């Protein structure tokens, strides 16, 4: 995560659906709930959301269907016009952009992957991937070269001349991913990219996705309704309900300290030890006696399970990535997490 100016910065964003949303929002008294707004004849797609996405960060937006997660991400790219608040992308107010500037922004900085792929059925894999390049007027030779490059990147070499319907679901989504990467975007939106796939393929694609992200280091907004997927991928998770963000935090914190009953309900089924890292549980040393070899802070409690059970020390030193001590881990606390009493 980065502490520089955020890539996407949104403040008090509202998206209302209904007859005359702007007017309604202006005259609406503060503190109206989702149900109140619904009773007034409007749907709050996004309700007073403020969130930042830092450079190189992967923010996962998690929520059930109808929670507004897809709407929110479409506000970031201005596929939807927002009703109130501000969204800045790289310091530019997206709502202030002219049509031309908006097209320019999408052509140069944004890529998006869709749940049901959104491939153009009449174009081959190559032409689908090259589509954004074609739109911005790149010449045939350059776009072919670049398209082949990304096709190779997503592992679809040799399938360039296939049509979407000749491919499996997983392969089609690889095409979708390749297309979204063709213009080398800074910001990458993924709208439930793996939801339409079989569980086994989904797992494979998640690994593939992590590999790509390690290589490319993009700023990512990833949408899912699958909490496990969110925990597996996210730097931070924003959990949405009825258009509003219930909690936005790191996976460890969400699991350890769910802020609302709604969030707690998600975490109940989760094996916390697989999410929580030693480094997060570690307390400052503050004079505690530490002895012996330190454990790595970026390992999960589950990964340390064998050692924790067998170790005789009350407090274990924890080391950061560079090997320096960052704190101590109370063995009892860790065991509580491991055994589900935390």
């Amino acid at each position: 995560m980065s502490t520089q100016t955020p890539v996407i910065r949104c403040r008090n964003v509202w998206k209302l659906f209904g007859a005359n949303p702007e007017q309604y929002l202006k005259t609406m008294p503060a503190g109206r709930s989702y149900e109140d707004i619904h009773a007034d004849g409007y749907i709050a797609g996004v309700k007073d959301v403020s969130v930042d996405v830092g450079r190189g960060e992967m923010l996962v937006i998690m929520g059930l269907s109808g929670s507004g997660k897809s709407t929110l991400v479409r506000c970031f790219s201005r596929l939807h016009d927002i009703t109130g608040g501000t969204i800045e992308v790289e310091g530019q107010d997206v709502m202030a952009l002219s049509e031309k500037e908006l097209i320019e922004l999408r052509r140069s900085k944004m890529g998006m992957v869709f749940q049901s792929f959104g491939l153009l059925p009449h174009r081959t894999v190559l032409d689908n991937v090259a589509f954004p390049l074609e739109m911005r007027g790149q010449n045939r030779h350059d776009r072919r070269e670049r398209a082949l490059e990304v096709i190779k990147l997503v592992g679809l070499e040799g399938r360039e001349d296939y049509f979407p319907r000749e491919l499996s679901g997983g392969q089609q989504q690889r095409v979708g991913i390749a297309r979204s990467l063709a213009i080398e975007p800074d910001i990458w939106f993924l709208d439930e990219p793996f939801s339409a796939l079989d569980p086994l393929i989904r797992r494979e694609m998640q690994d593939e996705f992590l590999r790509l992200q390690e290589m490319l280091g993009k700023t990512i907004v990833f949408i899912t309704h699958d909490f496990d997927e969110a925990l597996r991928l996210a730097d931070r998770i924003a959990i949405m309900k009825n258009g509003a963000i219930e909690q936005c935090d790191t996976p460890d914190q969400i699991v350890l300290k769910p802020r609302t009953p709604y969030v707690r309900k998600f975490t109940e089924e989760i094996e916390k030890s697989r999410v929580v890292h030693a480094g997060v549980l570690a307390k400052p040393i503050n004079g505690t006696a530490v002895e012996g070899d330190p454990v790595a802070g970026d390992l999960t409690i589950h990964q340390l399970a064998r050692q924790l059970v067998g170790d005789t020390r009350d407090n274990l030193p924890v080391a950061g990535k560079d090997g320096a001590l960052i704190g101590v881990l109370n063995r009892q606390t860790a065991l509580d997490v491991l055994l589900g009493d935390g």
Partner: protein
Amino acid sequence: MVEIASPIAPIRRSVSYDPVIIALLGLAALLCFAKPILPDFLIRVPEAWVPPLANWLDTFFEFIKGDLDTGRPGLIHLTRWFAEGPLAFLLGVTANLLEGKHRWPFFDPLPWSTVAAVAAVIGYYLGGWRLALLGGGTFVWTALVGQWKIAMQTLSVLAVAAPLAFLIGLTLGIMAWKWGWFERMIKPVLAILQTIPFFTYLLPAVIFFKVGPTAGAIATTIYAIPPMVLMTTLGLKKVAPEIIEAGKMSGCTRLQMLFRVFIPSARTEILVGVNQVIMLCLAMVVLTAFIGMPGLGGKLLAMMNSFKLGRSFEIGVTIVLVAITLDRMSKAWVVKLPVHHERGTPWHIRHKYLVMAVAAFVFFLLLSQFVDILDKVGRKQSLSMGREIDTVIKGALAIDAVKSVTETIRYVLNVWVLIPFRNALLWIPTPAFILVVVAFAWGFGGKRPALFATAFFTTVAFSGWWDRSVITLYSVISAVILSVMIGVPLGILASRSKTWATRILLVCDTAQTFPSFIYLLPAIMLFGVSDVTVVLSIVIFTTVPLTRYTIEGLRNVPAEMTEAADMSGATRRQKLLNVQLPMALPTMAVGFNQAIMFAFFMVIIAAFIGTQDLGQELQRTLAGTDLGKNFVLGMNVALMALTFDLTLMSWAGKKNKMLGLSAR
């Protein structure tokens, strides 16, 4: 059974004893009983009350038309310029290439063998050997029976009208999709265009675009536009939201969105539109015979007029073959999807069909220079057996057994059914008639259709053509009732077995592609020229959609429902009456509606057999320049047809919603 019974119960009750209906019907009955003492103006609208609508329209048309002789400005200058300039040029080119008309580019006509060969290759490309055989075979047949020239006259108009209708329809469709106000404006216009009898297209076409191929092409084009508009709009609306978003995120400008994303993604619907354009064009181009266009239709009309059944039959076969070929090929194009080639495939393999077509063309072009029979089939050489077939048909009809059967049918229908029914309808006082129609519209469609029915039928009453309108309606109603009695049982029977359902559906689908003109043939063959023939030709024509939609409706009853009925121990009959028919009824209503629309269409064509209805008058106007009268007559037909259309479609829509089935 509970689950099944619940959605059905409201249907039974839906033909309700609404007080409005009782009042309307009661009043109508009262008027009928009181007829002897009714004042004249309550029996028929008096002549004096009829507004001279035709004259007003004439004045109006005269005004916008302008005058060529005096040079008064008006629309006709533009249309005549178009007809004599670009349109005549295009028609000249196709006519020169196909039939050798002396026009630019002044080639000899293409040898028939080249056309047949290329058609076979196109058929092979689109659908393999069977379509190749159909495409090639159709043209071989046409040439061999000596109808090449007239067939090419028809096709040369089609080759101009169909692309024109496609382009105009596509453009209008895009506009309707883009702008809601345009769609709202154009929808009723399209609905009216689809119900106006074709004679009403023909006369303005003749006046504005000159007699001959130009008028024929224009009438044909206009006739084929509506479905193209509707299919284009439908296709564009159906493009998946994610594809649209993917396009936007790829940074498409508006034009790029339209041409690179929307139109290619709507390919299927647009091609279905193309199929309908081609079929409607063919149907209409055949009918332009009535304004003296030469070609298959013209020849058929002439042969039927002189009762040459053998030749009529042969021409009928040609028209049917051409229709099936065009339909199958364009439908195959709809489902034809691009397939990739492996990398490094050489050019001539990638484009093997193009290579084949060119090779076949050149081969037969050269060969026909030396082998005359491949170039032209002369009159003496043709294998036409018109005279022999004629003798056979007439001989068969003259056999006593056959004759007594047809005579009996004709007699019973005429004396016991048709004429009494007609007289009864004519006897009913106009207001009572309107009340019954309104009650029907109210009962089935609801308030809106009832209001339209009132307005539409009152207009008809005041048009001055009430009796002829009633006769038209009588033909339509009696024919549709007869075809319900044939089509529905046939459909129910066929849907009992999957194979038969598929077979009959195929027959119906094929029959629906035939130009309507063709349906007159069997009726005339069997019953000669009489009132019964008119009704029977409509019956043959309308049984097709009725059967088709009955099967479709029964087949699409969800499997769980029939299974639930089986598990509830229903007999076949109980299942049919309590589960399948109620569920299929909305779909069948659509078929019923289509049958009525077809009937209105056919009754006008049948006019040339000799009727006393609107069609007869309409046909008479074609000889003159009586645009006003022509429009009033056409309007009457359209208004009556629209009343049924609105009522039945609204009923089907309501029922589908109630049953939770998607509207079809």
